[in-house]
């Protein structure tokens, strides 16, 4: 037990570079596996939450652009959504990495200021960028569908109150669209968090053996020749993570629906998968 505490001290933050430098090389214990894989989960959380956060805003902008009647706004948004929804995330990672390493190492001169580029090839930036654009495309499609389904009556009521433009969008259209989109968006969030496992299996290399949960799981599976321990541990962690996510989105859902008497109190799973 005390040995395990020691392991936790050594490896709980290994994925972000704090603690023991070398990974365990032999005599692997269950405690080591649970600790290190849990430590890798930090990266999954980092990618998942930041990508969702930034992606949310970008997706809203894209949805509005796609809904717009101006082709200069609509066409680019449609193409962006088509490219990111139409191709596998796995390939997007590869292409993004290969493209990012082509940026000049010394940095790019923008108006006399040198902008460093080398950090873009690191997983924390490059993979986050890909995940963000990817989830933005999927979410934009969801939000676009919701915008189209905003009840005509609500829009007419807003007009009657003399609301126009931004005010009408912010106070009437957007809240209703969010309410309609939320169940599907919850789904998208779960898929995105699951997709973070691909980061270190794709083009982005692991620095100093700091990787995500699956990186450590495959490390253990390869060293112990036994996939029947490490992978189920990852699976367990992800089930917990998914449950937390559903809980969190459920809270938001209740808030979005709070004015509707008898509206769905619980988020129901939509079998029409969006991803």
């Amino acid at each position, binding site marked *: 037990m005390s040995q395990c505490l020691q392991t936790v001290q050594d490896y709980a933050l290994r994925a972000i570079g704090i603690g023991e*430098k*070398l*990974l365990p*090389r*032999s005599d692997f214990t269950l405690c080591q596996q649970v600790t290190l894989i849990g430590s890798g989960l930090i990266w999954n959380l980092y990618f998942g939450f930041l990508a969702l956060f930034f992606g949310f805003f970008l997706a809203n902008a894209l949805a509005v652009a796609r809904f717009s009647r101006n082709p200069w706004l609509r066409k680019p948004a449609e193409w962006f959504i088509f490219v990111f929804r139409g191709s596998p995330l796995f390939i997007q990672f590869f292409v993004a990495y290969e493209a990012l*390493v*082509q940026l000049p*190492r010394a940095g790019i001169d923008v108006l006399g200021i040198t902008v460093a580029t*080398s950090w873009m*090839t690191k997983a924390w930036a490059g993979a986050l960028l890909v995940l963000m654009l990817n989830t933005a495309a999927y979410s934009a499609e969801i939000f676009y569908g919701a915008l189209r389904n905003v009840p005509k009556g609500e829009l007419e009521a807003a007009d009657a109150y003399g609301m126009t433009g931004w005010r009408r969008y912010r106070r009437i259209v957007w809240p209703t669209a969010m309410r309609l989109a939320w169940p599907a968006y919850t789904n998208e969030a779960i898929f995105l968090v699951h997709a973070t496992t691909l980061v270190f299996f794709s083009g982005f*290399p*692991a*620095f*100093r*053996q700091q990787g995500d949960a699956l990186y450590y799981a*495959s490390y253990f*599976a*390869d060293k112990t*020749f036994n996939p029947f321990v490490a992978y189920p541990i990852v699976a367990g962690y992800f089930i917990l993570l998914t449950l937390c996510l559903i809980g969190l989105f459920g809270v938001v859902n209740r808030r979005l629906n709070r004015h509707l008497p008898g509206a769905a109190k619980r988020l129901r799973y939509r079998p029409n998968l969006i991803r």
Partner: protein
Amino acid sequence: MKKIMLAAAAALALTAGMGMAQNVRIGTEGAYPPYNFVNDKGELDGFEIELGNELCKRAELQCTFVKNDWDSIIPNLVSSNYDAIMAGMNISDERKKAIQFSEAYTPPPLSAYAALSPDADIKGVVAAQTNTIQAGYIAESGATLVEFPTGEETIAAVRNGEAEAVFADRDFLAASVNESNGELVWIEGQDKVVVGEGIAIGLRKSDTELKGKFDKAIESMKADGSLNAMIRKWYGEEALIF
């Protein structure tokens, strides 16, 4: 009664095994020239393929080469997807815990650092292939290790500046360094580092019989000089020989 039937079955299995040449599947990576690679016809080629076929001829085995990713090359050996590994794999204590090795078929090979400039920092960011003895060496040397699944990607990482240097088997790096028109160079004083005890055939620990056969074949190739000739053929005149 039951015992007799079992004995009969065992005898049958034995004679069946003796009747024809034993089938041996050899796992290799196919991405580590000139040790082993996939040539432009899409076939496996390289020093180890030629050597393996010669060894099998001498040991009277029926051999087939199988491609397998480097990452999972040992796990797939112990789970019996093939029976031997010839993939530029050095003998090391860590690997010996999982598998056993035949006699080495190369002298302890030299590893080397290559970089874009001869004075690059070997304690900086160094690229190495995952699960190699070189990766272990870098992790312990205090440098920052960046791992890639194939050897080719480690070189690409130096070319595009992702890593400051690459540490790998010298014979593997040599072709890339020599043909880069001076882009890639050896790091001064760091181009001949001895890591590992020699490259050998990896085998399951329980497979002592196969080890015996391969050992004998390697011995005989060492004795008549054909192994040295083959090393010279693939690695040039300056290569280390027995």
